[in-house]
């Protein structure tokens, strides 16, 4: 039976899970959750994700939420090399950079995406440039670390691509859609690393799904 992913592909957290499903070659079905009608707050959806967010995943009797946990589950179940669980050191490095993605990249990026893309387009609101600038500064500090890291190894956790790298892709994709995509020119290795990910077949497929659901 195919796994079910609840949520729309345009959501970065849903896209994170979808790219893992694609990379692992797993059969799955996307079940949309309609935010416009507050379906994410419905009893049916909150029984899957008690925080009323997306994604949720159903695999037989197992129901999971939190995209990074779902991603690990999908990859682990399919013995994916994207987790490196056969090596204590390599798996630890994957964990390290997945934490970095969550705390040092996603946090400022979520604000930037909201201010630059979500607020004007979906709520007819005005971008707060001061907030954007503060978060761009935080993002620059993060990218300085990444630029250095990527001078020492091909990918974040080592010379192998992992969940740590791919976890960045949905948010990085949206960065390119903001007026601030040009900041990547200050970080050539980071830019090349992102471009490399966006060229992966699994990523290309998920981007098509993200565009279709927007």
């Amino acid at each position: 039976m195919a796994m079910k992913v609840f949520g729309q592909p345009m959501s970065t957290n849903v896209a994170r899970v979808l790219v893992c499903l694609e990379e692992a070659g797993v059969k799955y079905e996307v079940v949309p959750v309609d935010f416009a009608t507050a379906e994410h707050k419905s009893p049916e959806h909150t029984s899957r994700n008690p925080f009323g967010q997306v994604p949720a995943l159903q695999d037989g009797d197992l129901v999971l939420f939190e995209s990074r946990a779902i991603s690990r589950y999908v990859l682990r179940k399919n013995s994916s090399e994207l987790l490196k669980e056969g090596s204590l050191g390599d798996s630890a490095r994957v964990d390290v950079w997945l934490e970095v993605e969550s705390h040092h990249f996603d946090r400022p990026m979520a604000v930037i995406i909201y201010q630059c893309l979500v607020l004007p387009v979906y709520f007819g609101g005005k971008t707060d440039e001061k907030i954007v600038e503060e978060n761009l500064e935080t993002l620059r500090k993060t990218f300085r670390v990444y630029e250095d890291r990527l001078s020492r190894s091909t990918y974040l956790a080592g010379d192998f691509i992992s969940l740590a790298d791919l976890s960045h892709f949905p948010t990085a994709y949206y960065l390119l859609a903001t007026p601030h995509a040009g900041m990547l020119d200050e970080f050539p290795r980071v830019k090349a690393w992102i471009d490399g990910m966006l060229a992966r077949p699994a990523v290309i497929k998920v981007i098509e799904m993200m565009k279709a659901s927007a």
Partner: protein
Amino acid sequence: MSPVKVFGRAISTNVARVLVCLEEVGADYELVSVDFLAGEQNSPEHVERNPFGKVPALQDGELVLFESRAIAKYVLRKYRTSEVDLLRESSISEAAMVDMWTEVEAQQYYPALSPVVYECIIFPVMRGVPTDQKVVDESLEKLRKVLGVYEAHLTKNRFLAGDFISFADLSHFPFTFYFMATPYASLFESYPHVKAWWEGLMSRPSIKKISANMPTKF
């Protein structure tokens, strides 16, 4: 095995997260202080270990790690025994539950609770900056919603990942400990199963030992 080195101070929340795990597995470790007053966290030597200039970092032979939740998982994996298995990685469904509630701590609980700790304790004590009550009030409102979810869950489950204690539970310790030293500790009284779960955590030998080095009065 030779002792691992943990860089940071015992009073630091994220250092304590790692130390509790080392205690749970009974590993040998050495705590190497990082002097924040002298700006040691930004020294080239420390930045080589933790490029964001934060604590903790961990050194185990050639391996150097940072990010407390990643370090903790490494420790729990390396020193796992049949008696002490806090990640449950040999069971794919149990591991998924542990991962999920570990993420919940990081993505839902910590963002709601930690600003209260920062505003009431860390900023006033470390930077002489007064409490921003607006931030505190907004955070408490978020925290009530989060605790509502935890209460429903812990009514049906003894621990977060199921009927077994795991890293998901332990990961909540450091920031909650300091929250209990703020004027808002009584918030937990409204969530009896959460309160009981917290008291259970505080009774664990590892947590008693590590919290003994963390102040409760400021």
